[in-house]
């Protein structure tokens, strides 16, 4: 162990030649687990895998190995991205390439392992095998990079996610990790690094897409005795789990990115603000920081370069608004997480009044590649205005739920249909929400839109953090808007009136139009129509007058669904119908006379006494009394009650 670390430091990290000698290469092969003496079983054990039952799979594997008396190592790895097919288990036999299995639940373990150890893989669970040099490939097993989910992707940030051991610094270095950092501190001045990143045209992946290098330069040029780097991992919009997945699967890459960024701006202290709920990510990151410190890659006078860096983990106590940079700084300072006025921008005066750079996890994970391969290499990837790749999470009614990375310029149709595998259960695509609650919806006709900051902005949407939620015909656009507005209303910090009060009013109005009024005669109806007429105006006012990004984008979802699905809103308001059947209180129930046996059960349960009838004769629902609660529907044993 001690020996390995010394070898990695002296022979690998400090050896900045392009090619290693054969002897070093051989030793690296062992550390990369390419040359092994006993089988290794890799289990995908990040959050998605664990929920799917990875822990039970691991104990089943252990039982199997004990029973058959096979000596093998089990290594817990991160998420490869295909969350829908978890638990994913890879097996590597000595001399053979690594082979990956999907949906390996505890009951499938014996069967699959029997197959692997007897060289007869005839299982439906095979995902594919990795293309590995010098190792013998399995016959009749497809390569994993040929699977459509992976074939269309361009993985830079996610390169080794789910492949390497996230808790082993040796493994990371053996795969080329920390070389960029060591190269940076030995060969470049902080000014050089800012210039290189600026030249690469890397844009912040957190949402707004501001050029990272430019921002660094501002902080670098501001005179101060202390500067700070803050990594924004407070990803809290529902439907996005990029940061969490990256940190769980490859924490050292983020540390390397943070270290380079801190060096570039001259920061001695770096914070990571990570959501408290992501316990696994926090513990893996903590462990990684400790390992890096023990290795000498963090701390005082790193590798005798004179550069000091301390990484501090701040657990975000759960507030969506803290994803906004100034609110995050307030929270780190121990105050309520409320945004401040800008300017001064944090790059000039941020945390504790010192110049501070706030970057997103994904942005920072791109840095090591740029430093290692140069800005020209990075500039070749992507489109004219957006370089590199972008990570997205796919969730909702899509087949391949998970986390994917594509080159900028890929269109969304490819992401949904090729990588995502289309819509679940043979339904049809209706729309996708890009960027969570602050985002916009993209309709079927606009799926040819390309992943590109400018193009998305021209369409009227924002890239956001990269959460894609897919909706099919069974999703009601009014309901989903209500859901997002409800979320923002709860998360609004309360500083500005338009956002605090406006979102509440919007929610009230939306709630009213998804409900049948009890009494048409009272002022309710008037209020309802007044509300509907004002809804769009409120949305515009919130957008124009809020201080921070959260408020400015609060009504985006509403405005975009109104633009593309106006007919659905009108249907809710005028016809009181929800075509998707989601808005429960708009449902009207009817009794099928042929099926009703007159058992009386629904009549007794109905809270509004809206059902009338005699025992043993078909019953009838009085439409004007029915509130659409659905209790009768759940009660009926003969499925005689139906929704129209």
């Amino acid at each position, binding site marked *: 162990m001690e020996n390995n670390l010394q070898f990695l430091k002296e022979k690998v990290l400090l050896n900045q030649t392009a090619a290693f000698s054969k002897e070093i290469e051989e030793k690296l092969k062992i550390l990369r687990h390419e040359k092994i003496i006993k089988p290794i079983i890799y289990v995908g054990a990040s959050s998605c895998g664990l929920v*799917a039952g990875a822990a039970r799979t691991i104990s089943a594997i252990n039982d199997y190995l004990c029973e058959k008396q096979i000596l093998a190592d089990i290594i817990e790895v991160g998420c490869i991205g295909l969350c829908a097919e978890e638990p994913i288990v890879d097996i590597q036999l000595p001399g053979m390439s690594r082979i990956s299995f999907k949906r390996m639940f505890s009951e499938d373990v014996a069967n699959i392992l029997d197959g692997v150890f007897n060289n007869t893989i005839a299982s439906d669970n095979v995902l594919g095998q990795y293309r590995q040099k010098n190792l013998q490939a399995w016959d009749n097993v497809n390569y994993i990079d040929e699977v459509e989910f992976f074939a269309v992707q361009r993985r830079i940030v996610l390169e080794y996610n789910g492949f390497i051991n996230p808790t082993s610094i040796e493994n990371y270095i053996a795969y080329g990790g920390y070389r960029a950092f060591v190269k940076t501190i030995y060969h470049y001045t902080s000014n050089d690094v800012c210039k290189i990143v600026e030249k690469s045209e890397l844009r912040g992946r957190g949402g707004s897409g501001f050029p990272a290098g430019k921002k660094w330069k501002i902080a670098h040029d501001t005179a101060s005795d202390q500067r700070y780097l803050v990594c924004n991992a407070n990803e809290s919009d529902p439907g996005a789990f990029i940061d969490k997945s990256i940190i769980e699967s490859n924490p050292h890459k983020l540390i390397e990115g943070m270290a380079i960024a801190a060096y570039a701006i001259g920061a001695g202290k770096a914070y990571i603000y990570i959501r408290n709920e992501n316990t696994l990510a926090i513990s893996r990151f903590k462990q990684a920081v400790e390992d890096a410190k023990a290795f000498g890659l963090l701390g005082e006078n790193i590798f005798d370069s004179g550069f000091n860096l301390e990484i501090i983990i701040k657990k975000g106590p759960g507030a969506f608004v803290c994803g906004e940079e100034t609110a995050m700084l307030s929270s780190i300072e121990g105050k309520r997480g409320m945004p401040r006025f800008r300017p001064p921008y944090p790059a000039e005066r941020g945390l504790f009044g010192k110049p501070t750079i706030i970057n997103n996890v994904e942005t920072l994970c791109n840095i090591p590649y740029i430093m290692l391969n140069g800005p020209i290499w990075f500039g070749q990837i992507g489109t004219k205005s957006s370089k590199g790749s972008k990570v997205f999470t796919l969730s909702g*009614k899509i087949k391949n739920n998970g986390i994917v990375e594509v080159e900028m310029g890929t269109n969304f149709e490819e992401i949904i249909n090729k990588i995502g595998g289309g819509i679940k259960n043979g339904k049809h695509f209706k729309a996708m929400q890009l960027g969570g609650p602050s985002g916009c919806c993209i309709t079927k006709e606009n799926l040819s839109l390309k992943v590109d900051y400018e193009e998305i902005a021209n369409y009227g949407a924002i890239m956001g953090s990269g959460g894609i939620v897919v909706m099919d015909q069974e999703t009601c656009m009014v309901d989903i808007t209500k859901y997002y507005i409800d979320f923002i209303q709860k998360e609004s910090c309360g500083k500005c009136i338009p956002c605090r009060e406006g979102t509440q009013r919007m929610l009230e109005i939306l709630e009213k139009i998804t409900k049948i009024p009890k009494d048409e005669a009272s002022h309710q109806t008037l209020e309802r129509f007044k509300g509907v007429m004002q809804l769009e105006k409120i949305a515009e006012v919130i957008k124009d007058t809020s201080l921070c990004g959260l408020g400015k984008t609060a009504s985006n979802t509403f405005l975009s669904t109104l633009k593309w699905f106006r007919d659905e809103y009108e249907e809710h308001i005028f016809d009181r119908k929800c075509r998707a059947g989601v808005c429960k209180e708009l449902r009207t129930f009817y009794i099928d006379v042929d099926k009703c046996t007159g058992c009386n059960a629904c009549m007794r349960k109905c809270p509004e006494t809206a059902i009338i009838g005699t025992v043993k004769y078909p019953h009838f629902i009085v439409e004007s009394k029915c509130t659409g609660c659905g209790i009768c529907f759940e009660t009926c044993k003969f499925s005689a009650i139906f929704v129209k």
Partner: protein
Amino acid sequence: MADNIDEIIGKYSNAGRSDLLDALQEIQEFNGYLSEDAVVKLSKQFNLATTKIYGIASFYDQFRFVQYGKFHIKVCNGTACHLSDSKPVIKELEKLLRIKHGQTTRDAMFSLEEVPCLGSCGLSPVMSINNEYYAAVKTADIKDILESLKKSDS
């Protein structure tokens, strides 16, 4: 128990304002909630008014001022779960336990919490009880799940 809170607070004797949230988190981790007693002690330590500390703590979703139940039920209401009908699951739980989310039953057996995303959108709707996950939950199963928990306890 009180001794330990003192111990936790004692660790922050040289701390500044920026460590307040860490202290609150540590106390909550240990106690399960923030008691009045703890807030008062913290206010002395950090030289801040109790109202100020309460104001900060109540701003964030994480901090609670009531004890969790023996079984803490978290239901995911992320977008993916919302699309796969997580609301009826929450409604059913509220109906059976006779509490609203964020509350604890009077016998201190169950507490209910609606959480933004448990990170397993492929298996929605998801709920977790004392960190054991239940995937693709149906409203019809909830009664049985609660019954079996009650049984396992007695």
